[in-house]
């Protein structure tokens, strides 16, 4: 038996292909939306992977350092370092800000990492050119997405830094590229106040007799020195020894240091379930709407194509064609339209993904799922047309 659907498609292939391309662009948008969500999750996981930490120690009762502000003193690191099961501990600061790059602004996450010894958690990984920060001050490592090149000068707040290395895929959970500074430089950038604020603070200290007792100026000087200090970090990243259990080490830190500690699994949950949960729901809504729109379009197209062939269908039925042969013809056309649409959509999504400002990750598993969904939608959408075809009375082929 010949393929009636195939012949019909070949007969009007131009119209069919154009319709498929239109549908494909819609499917491309749908795949891209899924890719945006996957990109957000991947950014979050890249952030955790690249930090190379097993545990995140943060300010007590906060979801820091990524989902909530967190601040703890730098010297909390030393007692943690001494605990059983801890291999390394290093303070780290995170500050998302706009920095100037030529005539434009670039949104970056400034990361202050302890560069005291190589391989500490929080230091930049995936270095693709240049070197790590080796000087105590005024050197930076930037992700290529910032657009900076080695040797460029970057101004962060009051100081300028020379880019000495470039990384790839070092991004925040929001997809902003990272700019690494030494911990001291980053603390200064994050916590140091401007000169006017310092002058006003000193004036307030001078007028307070408890902080500036008459005849003892050393007290006021000591207070001013403390106020100007930048000894805070946003988190302490901890790696554990191979034989240690992360939950046990985390429990010990919580108990003895009275700080909040997250394991990798808990931090992943915070990032994916809490930080990007709203965005994920937003995207899920878009996916649902786009799927409904796609289904409505396929249903409308297939229905219109079927209604345009009512007389032929009546003749086919009159001369003895089974309902299931006609239904199969319509279903094949719907599936054909879906196949063309999916191929066009996949190609389109792959072509335009690199031009999105944020990372769009098109996973093969999502493509397979998308293909199955498209075929399912096309099958459901063809039911309306099949219903119409089944209702056609063969008597319509005979006049009267």
């Amino acid at each position, binding site marked *: 038996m010949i393929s009636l659907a195939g012949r019909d498609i070949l007969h009007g292939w131009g119209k069919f292909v154009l319709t498929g391309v239109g549908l494909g662009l819609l499917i491309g948008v749908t795949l891209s939306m899924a890719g945006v969500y996957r990109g957000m999750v991947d950014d979050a996981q890249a952030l955790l992977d690249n930090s190379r930490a097993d545990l995140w120690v943060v300010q007590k009762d906060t979801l820091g350092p990524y989902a909530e502000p967190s601040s703890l003193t730098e010297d909390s690191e030393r007692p943690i370092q001494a605990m059983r099961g801890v291999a390394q501990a290093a303070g780290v600061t995170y500050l998302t800000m706009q920095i100037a790059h030529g005539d434009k602004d670039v949104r970056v996450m400034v990361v202050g990492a302890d560069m005291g010894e190589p391989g500490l958690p929080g230091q930049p990984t995936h270095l693709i050119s240049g070197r790590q920060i080796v000087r105590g001050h005024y050197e930076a490592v930037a992700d290529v997405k910032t657009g900076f090149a080695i040797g460029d000068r970057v101004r962060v707040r009051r100081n300028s830094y020379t880019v000495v290395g470039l990384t790839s895929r070092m991004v925040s959970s929001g997809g902003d590229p990272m700019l690494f500074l030494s911990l001291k430089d980053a603390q200064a950038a994050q916590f140091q106040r401007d000169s006017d604020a310092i002058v006003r603070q000193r004036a307030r200290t001078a007028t307070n007799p408890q902080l500036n007792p008459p005849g003892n100026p050393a007290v006021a000087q000591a207070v001013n020195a403390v106020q100007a200090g930048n000894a805070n970090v946003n988190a302490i990243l901890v790696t554990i020894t191979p034989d240690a259990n992360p939950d046990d080490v985390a429990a010990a830190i919580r108990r003895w240091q009275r700080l909040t500690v997250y394991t990798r699994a808990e931090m992943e949950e915070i990032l994916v379930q809490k930080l990007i949960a709203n965005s994920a729901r937003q995207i899920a809504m878009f996916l649902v709407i786009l799927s409904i729109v796609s289904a409505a379009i396929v249903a409308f197209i297939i229905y219109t194509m079927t209604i345009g062939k009512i007389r032929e269908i009546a003749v086919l039925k009159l*001369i003895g064609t089974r309902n299931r042969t006609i239904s199969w013809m319509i279903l094949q056309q719907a599936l054909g339209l879906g196949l063309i649409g999916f191929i066009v959509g996949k190609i389109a999504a792959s072509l335009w993904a690199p031009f999105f400002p944020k990372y769009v990750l098109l996973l093969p598993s999502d493509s397979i799922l998308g293909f199955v969904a498209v075929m399912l939608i096309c099958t459901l959408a063809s039911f309306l047309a099949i219903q119409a075809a089944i209702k056609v009375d063969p008597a319509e*082929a005979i006049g009267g």
Partner: protein
Amino acid sequence: MAEGIILENVVKTYGSGETAVHALRGVDMAVAKGEVVGLIGPSGSGKSTLLKCLGAVIEPTSGKMTIGDQCIYDNGWKVRDLRALRRDMIGFIFQAPYLIPFLDVTDNVALLPMLAGKPNAEARKMARDLLDALDVGHRAAAMPSQLSGGEQQRVAIARALINRPPVILADEPTAPLDGQRALAVVGLLDDMARQFDTAIIIVTHDEKIIPTFKRLYKIRDGRTVQELQG
């Protein structure tokens, strides 16, 4: 001569009670194998209803219908699969050819044997042979839109004949054709009826072809009146 179609007291009533419409009030008709008869009548006289009943598209209210040796209706369908009955025992020719626009001429004709389960190659050979016999073999690869009206009607005739049905029902097959072509089509149907031993009923209004029928049935108010012609 053996009978191809026999209708006995066929009645078709639409609706019931006071609003009932009596489309056929007891039609009797007999067409022999190899014979072509005309069926004429004014609009609303019941011609199309008769064709639909005979074509197993609508069910008569009562009566008896026999095609060849098989009784297909006797106050109820005697055949379970009406679709197969239409495919294997009845050929249809319409006012317009109604060829399937996305199939070429050969496949338009070969579709019926294919639907009946014949292999594609065999069905296409049957179609080409029949198209040759109807003088449209040279257009076998063309699409319906590339044919003239006369050629399209010949292809429609080939489609009606391809399964060698004992009966062909033709609903105003010459309506879109000019006089000469209309006569040619009737002549062709006459030849085919004899060649394939098929009983053909042609419903027509066409004054040009009416004199060509050896036998003519007139239908009026749902009843048939046979008129013999010389």
